[in-house]
């Protein structure tokens, strides 16, 4: 760096004065402003004072003191939690007027819920839930049963959620989520929080019953104390409190049930989820009463408020924890509104319900499909972490099924040969780890997921080669194969085919996710669909091979009877899964050729880039696939050769979209019991139909009408585009 080290400053200055800031054990504060002033006089423009260890990284991480955007040491109001408490920022009780106390308690509960939702959505605990002073000093609230039990449950809930997300350990965005250093997340007796909550709930319930009972009865209960002193409001406040307490109780139950190993608590969790949802609805309904109770005008729209009543809650200060929040100075964050928080929890509960309804006996293929479907509803981190925890526990599927068994079932290895020494082989163990890792990756957010899927392609390729080499060597050394060795070769042969199919499936998912993430510009669609086409062809090849190898094994066992005509017919008929794939292949091919033709006939103009060509962009998009040779020899020259001759006139003659429509008609009935597959077929049909029509219009009218413009939209399917023809 130019102009760096200043000369040794020899300036006479008075000793720095001690400031009123109290000294710590290892620190003494002194005012150095005069020294800095003197240094500034001495430095030329562009000069920098730095010590030997002030390197470039340090320069980039530097912050400007007193800039509130960068300097977390800037004190907003209080130096510490204790000072805030001394100043009365979190009184206990909140008010001597019991009605006000109840109202304020409800506000605190609502704001905590909003904070919790904000935390889930990707902010730090310190700035959200633990901005609550009552939570930071758990012992202070012991005289206030409502607040104390509620805070306990919130702390216990947060602790449970942190542990589930930590266990997932995918190192995506949860790094910020799980940071709880210096926060009172583990309170004494928090595990007994439910019994405390139940006691409080029971009390409020009695208070509710009492206020609804005729006055005679009420007088009889001598030691009875109502919730607050305004009889007209008792019912409203009791009800408002009860649904909030009950929601917390049921939500805590949901989390503990779902935490039980091997999915044992899922059914019970679903019951609690249903209760949560109903209590949330009551909470929403309570806002009318609570808003009517508050004195004074409401500033701003109710939509932004973090409480049902619209009032600011007492006892929260996000700046108190700013030094604990994050490595970099935290920016102020906006807590979600109360309404949005409830929406978030509703969605979370629905997502958790889907997870709880996951059958625990699915094949691997069905599990992968289940996860892909689940991800379509865009679940947040907490829901996804719970799914991962259910599927992968102790290195086993559902915490119960060893991976080798999962693989052999997926590879359609015949029953008798499943238990075998093969499973101890190094490559097989490695393959097992890849399967577990794949399941975890599929539970992450799609942006992170796609990056990881791209990276693991090479691992899957390598394991295939290792397996092939290892077992080829073993079987190649003997010419007389023992029965055991035959069985071993058979198992590995099945597994190898399956590994290839799975590798191409990962590649297809990698390519398809690019559409969801909006990574492709329209000018790149042609090459992307081409690559998807090429990969789908490979999947078809491997799937068919897997079925053929299965049938062969069956024949060899002699169990398959081929006497009846029906059996022969069934063998000849193409399996529905294959037809389904063929339909997708037709669409991919159709789109590739249509896009190529449009470009070749100058109907889709792309101005050339000044710095590179389509070749470079091809290399970049498919780099990870090319490195792993998936598929082999799918190079840019091959893509160009396949598409350079394509003309619209060819396409009308060989209409791939019409082929797709034919296949859909043929295969529809086979999937009539499967609502997801049926819905997908309908979508594919729509794409095929619209594209076929568009193709017709373009090929007939384009030459005559140069004002026709073709664009591609995803209105019928998330990754197969539909051509839209318009006059410009």
């Amino acid at each position, binding site marked *: *760096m*130019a102009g760096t080290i200043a000369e040794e400053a020899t300036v006479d200055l008075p000793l720095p004065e001690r400031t009123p800031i109290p000294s710590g054990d290892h620190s003494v504060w002194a005012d150095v402003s005069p020294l800095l002033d003197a240094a500034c006089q001495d430095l030329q*423009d*562009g000069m*920098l004072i730095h010590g030997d260890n002030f390197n*470039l990284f340090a*320069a*980039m991480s*530097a*912050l*400007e003191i007193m*800039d509130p*955007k*960068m300097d977390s040491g800037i004190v907003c109001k209080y130096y510490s939690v204790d000072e805030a408490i001394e100043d009365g920022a979190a009184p206990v009780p909140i008010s001597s007027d019991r009605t006000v106390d109840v109202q304020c308690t409800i506000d605190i509960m609502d704001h905590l819920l909003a904070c919790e939702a904000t935390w889930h*959505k*990707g902010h730090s605990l310190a700035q959200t839930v633990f901005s609550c002073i009552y939570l930071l000093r758990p012992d202070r609230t012991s005289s206030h049963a409502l607040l104390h039990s509620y805070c306990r449950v919130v702390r216990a809930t947060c602790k449970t959620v942190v542990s589930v997300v930590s266990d997932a350990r995918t190192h*995506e*965005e949860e790094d910020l989520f799980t940071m709880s250093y210096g926060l009172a997340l583990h309170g004494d007796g928090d595990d007994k929080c439910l019994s405390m909550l139940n006691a409080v709930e029971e009390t409020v319930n009695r208070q509710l019953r009492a206020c609804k009972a005729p006055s005679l009865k009420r007088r009889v209960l001598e030691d009875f104390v109502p919730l607050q002193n305004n009889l007209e409001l008792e019912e409203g406040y009791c009800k408002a409190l009860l649904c909030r307490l009950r929601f917390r109780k049921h939500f805590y139950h949901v989390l503990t049930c779902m935490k039980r190993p091997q999915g044992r608590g899922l059914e019970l969790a679903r019951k609690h989820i249903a209760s949560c949802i109903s209590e949330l609805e009551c909470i929403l309904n309570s806002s009318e009463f609570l808003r009517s109770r508050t004195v004074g005008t409401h500033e701003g729209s109710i939509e932004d408020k973090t409480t049902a009543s619209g009032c600011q809650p007492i006892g929260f200060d996000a700046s108190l924890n700013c030094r604990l929040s994050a490595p970099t100075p935290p*920016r102020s964050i906006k807590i979600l509104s109360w309404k949005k928080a409830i929406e978030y929890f509703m969605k979370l509960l629905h997502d958790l319900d889907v997870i709880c309804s996951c059958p625990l006996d699915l094949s691997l293929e069905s599990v992968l499909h289940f996860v892909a479907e689940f991800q379509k509803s865009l679940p947040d981190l907490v829901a996804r972490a719970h799914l991962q925890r259910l599927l992968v526990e102790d290195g086993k599927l559902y915490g119960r099924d060893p991976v080798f068994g999962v693989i052999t079932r997926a590879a359609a290895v015949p029953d008798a040969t499943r238990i075998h020494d093969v499973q101890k082989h190094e490559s097989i163990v490695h393959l097992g780890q890849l399967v577990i890792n794949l399941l975890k990756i599929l539970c992450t*957010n*799609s*942006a*992170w997921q*796609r*990056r990881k899927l791209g990276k693991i392609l*090479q691992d899957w*390729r*390598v394991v295939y*080669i290792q397996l092939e080499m290892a077992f080829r060597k073993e079987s190649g050394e003997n010419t007389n194969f023992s029965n055991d060795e035959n069985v071993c070769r058979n198992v590995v042969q099945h597994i190898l085919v399956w590994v290839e199919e799975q590798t191409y499936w990962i590649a297809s998912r990698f390519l398809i996710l690019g559409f969801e*993430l*909006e*990574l*492709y*510009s329209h000018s*790149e669609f042609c090459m992307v669909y081409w690559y998807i086409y090429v990969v789908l062809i490979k999947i078809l090849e491997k799937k068919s091979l897997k079925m053929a190898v299965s049938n062969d094994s069956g024949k060899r066992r002699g169990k398959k009877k081929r006497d009846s005509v029906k059996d022969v017919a069934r063998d000849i008929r193409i399996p529905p899964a294959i037809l389904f794939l063929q339909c997708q292949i037709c669409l991919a091919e159709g789109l590739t050729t249509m896009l190529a033709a449009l470009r070749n006939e100058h109907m889709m103009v792309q*101005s050339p*880039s*000044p*710095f*590179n*060509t389509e*070749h*470079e*962009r091809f*290399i*970049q*998009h498919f780099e990870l696939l*090319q*490195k*792993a*040779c998936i598929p*082999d*020899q799918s*190079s840019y020259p091959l893509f160009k050769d396949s598409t350079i001759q394509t003309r619209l006139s060819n396409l009308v003659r060989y209409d791939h979209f019409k082929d797709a429509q034919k296949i859909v008609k043929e295969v529809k009935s086979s999937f009539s019991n499967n609502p997801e597959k049926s819905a997908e077929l309908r979508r594919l049909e729509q794409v095929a139909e619209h594209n076929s029509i568009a193709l017709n219009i373009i090929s007939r009218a384009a030459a005559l009408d140069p004002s026709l413009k073709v664009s591609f939209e995803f209105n019928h399917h998330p990754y197969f585009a539909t051509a839209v023809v318009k006059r410009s």
Partner: protein
Amino acid sequence: MESSEELIEYVSYDGEDHLPLIMGLVDKELSEPYSIFTYRYFVYLWPQLCFLAFHGGKCVGTVVCKMGEHRNTYRGYIAMLVVIDSYRGRGIATQLVTRSIQVMMESGCEEVTLEAEVTNKGALALYGRLGFIRAKRLFRYYLNGVDAFRLKLLFPRPHSGLIDFNTHPLSMS
């Protein structure tokens, strides 16, 4: 359009006097502030990659970049690109960026990269026209929760440098 472009003067970073102009433009645009050290880091080490656009005597746009070795690739990085609001839509940003990329290419960079908010349609269109692809999506990259795209431009390599995939060790036989 053309006449106003003729009025725009593009200048290479010339020294300390340009620094406050750059800081002024960039600070106004960004929600995440940079310390002065960050600016100095870029313009002192790579002044040849930093350009300013002037209209009359007024600085209306700037681009700040770096380049260096990153995981066995010599790559350029576009750190900041700003054009003041009233001067947008005239291709000034394209002119600035093109100059930087040209220098990167001539300096031996293999690729250029940057991040842009997924909502920044203008930037995405600009870089797309220059040959950048959207290589990755970064979830909640910015502190306001918005995702980012990592944009990458790959310069053409000499043909002999390309890997022959037919004899690649991982090739299926």
